[in-house]
């Protein structure tokens, strides 16, 4: 205890620590001796979990804001944001409706009025959901106008359409959960059309609603779809989408 170590000393000691070195692989920017050289930049990408997503180098033009408008990325970030805020909401929400047990609606009121940050997080979840539908649409349009669906990227476009569909279904199933008039009747309008599916219209509607009309069973069913099944499926397709971007030779273009 003779002398107080300087910040540089502390940094050095921390970085020399066995645990630190086990966490950050050689080349990590947090490791001792990282320098801003080509070699270390390449290592930083290669020895990072992000290497599952990104190659070491990317085309320069793909970085220009006016190429992707970061729309795919924004859709993805919104999905992350929705997952985080959604987990928060799950702590306070019970998918239960029906006389004497209108918990879903009560929980929404509580979130809005009494729970710390409840209103803010609920708002974020709602607005981010709308925004994600919008950015996904726009992302599709930008991909189209760049001809980025052309070989070898045809299949990734198909994966993209599935992602769009899943995004819409996620937004729609979530719309029912507050169990207010808005939710009930928006969903009623949307699902009434499904009854017109040729041949098994009635069956399709029955399976989706958990009954002949929207009720507490529908709420539980859509809740499970919304918080579990659809995000799970979307994540799988996202993985395929991102993987294909790399395998198809990175971002398309330049035009």
């Amino acid at each position: 205890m003779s002398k107080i170590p300087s910040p540089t000393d502390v940094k050095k000691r921390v970085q020399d620590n066995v645990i630190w070195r086990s966490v950050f692989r050689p080349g990590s920017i947090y490791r001792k001796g990282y320098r801003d050289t080509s070699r270390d930049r390449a290592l930083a990408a290669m020895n990072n979990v992000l290497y599952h997503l990104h190659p070491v180098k990317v085309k320069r033009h793909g970085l220009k804001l006016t190429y992707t408008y970061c729309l795919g990325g924004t859709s993805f970030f919104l999905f992350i944001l929705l997952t985080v805020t959604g987990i928060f909401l799950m702590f306070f929400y019970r998918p239960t409706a029906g006389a004497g047990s209108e918990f879903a609606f009560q929980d929404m009121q509580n979130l809005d009025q009494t729970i710390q940050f409840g209103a803010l997080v609920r708002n974020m979840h709602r607005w981010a959901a709308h925004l994600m539908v919008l950015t996904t649409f726009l992302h599709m349009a930008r991909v189209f106008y760049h001809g980025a669906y052309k070989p070898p990227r045809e299949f990734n476009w198909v994966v993209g359409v599935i992602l769009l569909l899943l995004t819409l279904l996620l937004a729609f199933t979530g719309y029912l959960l507050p169990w207010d008039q808005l939710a009930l009747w928006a969903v009623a309008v949307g699902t009434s059309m499904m009854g017109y599916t040729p041949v098994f219209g009635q069956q399709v509607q029955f399976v989706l609603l958990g009954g002949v009309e929207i009720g507490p069973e529908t709420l539980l069913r859509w809740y499970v779809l919304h918080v579990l099944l659809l995000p799970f499926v979307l994540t799988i397709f996202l993985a395929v989408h991102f993987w294909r971007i790399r395998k198809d030779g990175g971002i398309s273009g330049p035009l």
Partner: protein
Amino acid sequence: MAEEVEVDQEVYDELIAAGKSERIARAKAKAAAMRKKKAAAGEQMGPREASAPQAPAPKAKAAAGADAAEGGAVATKSRSGDGNGAGNGALTPQERQARVAAALQQKGGGGGPQPGRSTKLGGQDHTHRLLAMVPPTGIQQIRGKQDDKVYTWPHLITAEFVCLMAVTAVTTVFSALVNAPLGDLANANLTPDPSKAPWYFMGLQEMLRYLHPMVAGVTLPTVFLVGLMAFPFMDKNPSVRPENRKTAYTIFTFFLVFWAVLTMAGSFFRGPGFNWVWPWVDGLWFTL
């Protein structure tokens, strides 16, 4: 820890004194120690500096293959006028032919691999002979130009981080200012007028005004979706330039505008009874 590698302390201290980083100094000192050890063991080492573009193959090899090197290497040597390594060094087909002919002549008409001649590089001249068979365009072709690339770290990661922060900030600020709607408790016996689907399905609901529910609600969405997925397989035009894609642009833009108009009509211009209203006169029936 891995076993310690010897380090030439003298070299290390020298480099550190010269202000080199610890890593560089250690690496060079290790190399120096290794070199010393090999030299002491009488091992020959390839001269590293000599492998610069100008120099021929390492000496040891060159000596062994002296006879082969004379004739054999001619056909692949880079163009003299080019300067070494300048340009892509490719030969025109005529030039290549001329060189192959000259090389073969020098070797006395060529012929198969001659047994008993060079030993170590026995196959070498043969290889060069084979090169004459290669199509005049060459073995390795670089298709298109080299991509102009940058490092993912820091360039792409920084951009993504900024985007992530912006998305989070915009959503947070907007959410602090504008509350999400929450209506009255759901009541199956009390139909609001109008009842509207979420905006992303408003296009469908608007079509419902004009078409049979099966067509508007099932057939057309299915056709759209399948058509969307099939688009890349139907568009056989390889070009990605807007000026070559007028038809594709027209079709897609048509559907996009069509869809946007339907969505906006349903969202903003439909009131009680789902009848047409002017939002600036009659008010707005639209909730997100």
